[in-house]
């Protein structure tokens, strides 16, 4: 385990140097990005070797004389660590050129400092094995990511985002703490160890508290309200880390608590599947309605968290119904999707960062035709989009396919489990379809067609480290898709580490399926390449003329003729009106020669819409009513003293 701590130390040293060298912008950036990358690389190597060799290590530090901070790395931790260190490694590399444009050197230094704290605390959260260590790292993670979100605090939107995020993470942490406190109340020590001898109702309560707490970090509907604000506000490499891996710490927490609790009711599975279905469908619907590229990606994270939850839920249903094959399929699919989502969501955020960097805008409808001048970015984003839509032969498909299969196994079960499986399958199908629509919108409107503004016209791609990171991630999407038989070992090790007794009966079918998938993918890929070769063979020597996209024979085509993002999405959004109300602003056209008009639409998130009405307003009202206590009159203040005494005297 010492290698793990050395890597953490290197990362934190990087952060420390970034503060020390804050005034020397460039050298500070070089040193920090280098140290962060080295630290992450070391951690990645350590975690993957631990995962592959199924090594379990533990380490405990004395804390405040009486207590200890314990850390433990088992298969589950190692699996999540691989994702964390892998994505953070690439983000640090990416950040080197991404941050180059920033004018204020101190701000870069501070940003890197909190970035390093974020990486370290995420890794510590995942390895923490007692309450103190967990809460300490968890809060450090929240605090550091808050500072990253308000990086650009001049914009009032970002301040609002930061505030929402701050409040949600604190409330979430309090729920987690309540869950831990219930555990402590029963075990009497700080360890997060197995707790089989607890009453069942208590276990369920703990599960629900931790579900709410971790769910608010993971962005589960309806606790996701902060997410679409906070993720776009941060610099893009931070968004990549937050969306790609930070929200997964919430998933990790849920699974960890689940395994410790040793629950035997179908309830956790049901909660997970229903929450997953709702988050998944609504997440992608809201994503479809966004005009801001990074917000769209953020909502898409809510959707993918939904898919992961469905996978885990199927796994839990499999466990509670004694169906190991279903359990392994669900868990493996869920874990694999954790990894996959980390890969393609960071890729997409990095792509969005490049677009933002070059064009200065995040508005989808102000872009267009970027593929022509941003070949590498464009191709990488297209690969990422295909992957996130769950299309073969890319990685997104593999994870979702396993979850589907798990769901199909559940069809053989009784009543409630059966219904849950049906819900899971149908919502997965709906999510998949909508995700495809959503990402064709991104690719079609942003990267294809013609540029809609001058900024989009002039965009090129710059920054070697940014491109390298994206290429690596895109390659990962393809490779995992092509050879799932190899990569599937990682989530299987994590499933084995859950200690639910699923080996080996459940594992064999998954291996077989993965092998088959691998074969099919390779064949598919070969066919695609073959077709491409045939096509180029037939087009050889034939003249190919290039003209404006969507030219369609017009003599004077204008970019305004293109589908906009809003118009593309509107036919789907109409159907979801009840859960995704649309507010439109469109002044009527008047007069014979109408002056300039505009159309604005905004899709409303029902959780955000009702949060004020159902939660915030009542709280404010109650406390508003209490404010008369402090009315300024000293006579009644003295009366309070007397009242307190008189009331207390009754209790003697």
């Amino acid at each position, binding site marked *: 385990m010492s290698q793990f701590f050395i890597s953490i130390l290197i990362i934190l040293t990087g952060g420390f140097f970034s503060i020390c060298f804050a005034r020397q912008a460039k050298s500070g950036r070089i040193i920090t990005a280098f140290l962060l990358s080295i630290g992450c690389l070391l951690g990645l190597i350590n975690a993957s070797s631990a995962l592959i060799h199924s090594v379990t290590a533990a380490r405990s530090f004395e*804390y*405040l*004389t*009486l207590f200890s901070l314990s850390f433990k790395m088992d298969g589950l931790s190692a699996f999540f660590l691989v994702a964390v260190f892998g994505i953070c490694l690439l983000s640090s590399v990416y950040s080197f050129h991404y941050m180059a444009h920033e004018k204020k050197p101190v701000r870069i230094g501070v940003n890197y400092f909190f970035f390093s704290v974020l990486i370290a605390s995420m890794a510590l959260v995942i390895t923490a094995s007692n*309450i*103190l260590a967990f*809460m*300490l790292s968890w*809060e*450090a993670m*929240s*605090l550091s990511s808050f500072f990253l979100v*308000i990086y650009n*605090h*001049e914009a*009032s939107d970002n*301040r609002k985002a*930061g*505030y929402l995020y*701050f*409040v949600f993470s*604190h*409330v979430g942490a*309090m729920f987690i*703490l*309540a869950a*831990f*406190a*219930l555990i*402590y*109340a029963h075990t*009497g020590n700080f360890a997060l160890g197995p707790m089989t001898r607890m009453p069942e109702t208590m276990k369920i309560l703990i599960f629900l508290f931790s579900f709410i707490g971790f769910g608010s970090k993971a962005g589960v509907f309806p606790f996701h309200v902060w997410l679409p604000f906070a993720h776009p506000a941060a610099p893009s490499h931070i968004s990549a880390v937050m969306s790609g891996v930070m929200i997964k710490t919430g998933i990790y927490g849920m699974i960890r608590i689940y395994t410790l609790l040793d629950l035997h009711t179908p309830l956790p599975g049901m909660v997970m599947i229903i929450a997953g279905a709702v988050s998944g469908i609504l997440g992608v619907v809201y994503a479809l309605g966004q005009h801001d590229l990074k917000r769209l990606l953020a909502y898409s994270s809510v959707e993918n968290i939904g898919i992961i939850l469905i996978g885990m839920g199927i796994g839990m249903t499999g466990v509670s119904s004694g169906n190991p094959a279903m359990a392994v399929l669900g868990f493996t699919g869920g874990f694999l999707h954790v990894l996959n989502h980390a890969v393609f969501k960071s890729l997409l955020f990095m792509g969005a960062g490049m677009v933002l960097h070059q064009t200065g805008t995040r508005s989808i409808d102000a872009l267009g035709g970027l593929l022509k001048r941003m070949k590498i970015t464009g191709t990488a984003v297209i690969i990422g989009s295909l992957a996130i839509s769950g299309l073969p032969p890319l990685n997104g498909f593999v994870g979702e396919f396993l979850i589907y299969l798990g769901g199909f196994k559940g069809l053989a079960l009784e009543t409630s489990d059966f219904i849950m499986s049906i819900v899971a399958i149908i919502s997965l199908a709906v999510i998949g379809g909508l995700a495809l629509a959503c990402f064709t919108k991104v690719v079609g409107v942003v990267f294809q067609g013609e540029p809609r503004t001058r900024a989009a016209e002039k965009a090129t791609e710059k920054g070697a480290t940014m491109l390298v990171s994206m290429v690596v991630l895109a390659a990962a999407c393809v490779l995992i898709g092509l050879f799932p038989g190899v990569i599937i070992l990682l989530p299987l090790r994590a499933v084995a580490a859950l200690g639910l007794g699923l080996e080996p009966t459940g594992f064999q079918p998954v291996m077989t399926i993965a092998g088959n998938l691998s074969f099919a993918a390779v064949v598919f890929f070969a066919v695609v390449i073959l077709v491409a070769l045939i096509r180029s063979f037939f087009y050889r020597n034939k003249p190919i003329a290039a003209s404006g996209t969507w030219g369609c024979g017009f003599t004077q085509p204008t970019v305004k003729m293109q589908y906009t993002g809003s118009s593309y999405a509107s036919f789907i959004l109409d159907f979801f009106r009840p859960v995704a109300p649309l507010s439109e602003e469109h002044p009527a056209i008047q007069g014979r020669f109408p002056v300039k008009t505009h159309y604005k639409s905004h899709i409303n998130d029902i959780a955000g819409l009702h949060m004020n009405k159902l939660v915030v307003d009542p*709280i*404010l009202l109650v*406390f*508003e009513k*209490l*404010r008369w*206590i*402090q009315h300024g009159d*000293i006579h009644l*203040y*003295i009366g*309070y*003293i007397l*009242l*307190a*005494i008189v009331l*207390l*005297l009754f*209790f*003697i």
Partner: protein
Amino acid sequence: MVELIFLTPLVAGILAFFLPKSLGRWLLVGTGALHLILSLFLWNNRPEAVFNRYFSVTPEGLLSLLVISFLFFLISIYAVSYLKERELQAENVFTGFMLLFLSTMSMVTVSDHIMVFWIAIEATTLASAPLIYTHRSSASLEATWKYVLICSVGIAMALLGSVLITLSMDIGNVNAVLSFSAITGVAGKLDPFWLKAGFIFILVGYGTKMGLAPMHTWLPDAHSEAPGPASALFSGVLLNCAYLGIFKTNKIMHAAGLGDFSGIILMVFGLMSILAAATFIIRQNEYKRMLAYSSIENMGIIAFGTGIGGIGVYGAVICMIHHSLIKSSLFLSAGNILLGYGNRLIKNTGGLITLMPKTFLAFFAGFAGISGFPPFGIFIGELFIILGAFRGKHYAMAGIFILSLCVIFAGFANQVMKISFDHSKATIRLKEKPGLVWPQYVLLLTSLALCISIPDTVHQTIIDAISAIGGGF
């Protein structure tokens, strides 16, 4: 020997009334330093007092004393810079009463006799009242009036409570010195009825001074009207002194086997204070009042933790120490903000991060600390208190506790973000000299260091202080 700890600042305080400005400032810092040295000496040697019937060194007293000494030293350094920025009409009165205030508070920490303790607490009220009236405005006059009258009435209740405890000794035919430690030793023989009555009066009495709701009413007025260094002392140490009285009486209750009775009352008062703080923090217009309400919240947390017992008491003591460190730094930063913007209202501030970056660092770090984020110690304290509340099966109270902490955090964060980041057109009239920011940094760094590792001697003293009320694990 022990008596020197309050006699030294007493003499210095009286001297300060007759000294010119520049000498007075040096006297302030010098006495602060000397006092710190004396406290460390007391800490290491734990000598016997000359009047050992009235004064003695107790672990909980030592903890408070060290906090007072340390805070006063830093605050005096800040005060020197503060006084250079802001001219006062009668500066020697201010310095004089600051020193007298220090003297009375030190006396509180070393008093073990019930009545002497009461005398010392009442003396803190009297010595600190002129500090609130430093600016001679009608609002500060009102605050002083309320402070003196409400606290005097409250503390009179504590006197009655102390008398009732002696009555319970009479009825139980106990013959012992009238000191907290001696009574704790014979607590089993006291008459429970009158002991409970005494506890109630003492709780309400010292609770008034400590800022427990609903007797907290003087606190926001006094804290917001007093000048920065004085508010820092009020919040940082004066409230702890009053808490000391409740803590010691609670010890007697535990020794008498009435721990459940006192515990539940403390918890209820703690919760009420937290709720009261939540009520007024949500829509607060003035940042100093907001910090004052946050002090009420923290006193509530401490009382709640003390009521829980076990690990909760440990959490409460940790909270007390770190609250002193962090809140006084916040009040000093608020003093800078007031000097810089010249306005008490939150809506007239903003953009602290660009306009006063050094103060921003201290202010925001203090905010994070007081809200219970690591690496500051309140995090540990609150964590233990919540764990303890669940462990003690007080599920409903723990639920209210957690939810109100969330509400307070939401309100507090909202205001702090406005102050720190909002756009502002204000022109700043203050240069952030080292003396105006370093005391805060040192306070915060101390809290940070104590959160990472506690020196053995401090740890042992905490354990000694709480072992009598079931502060085990």
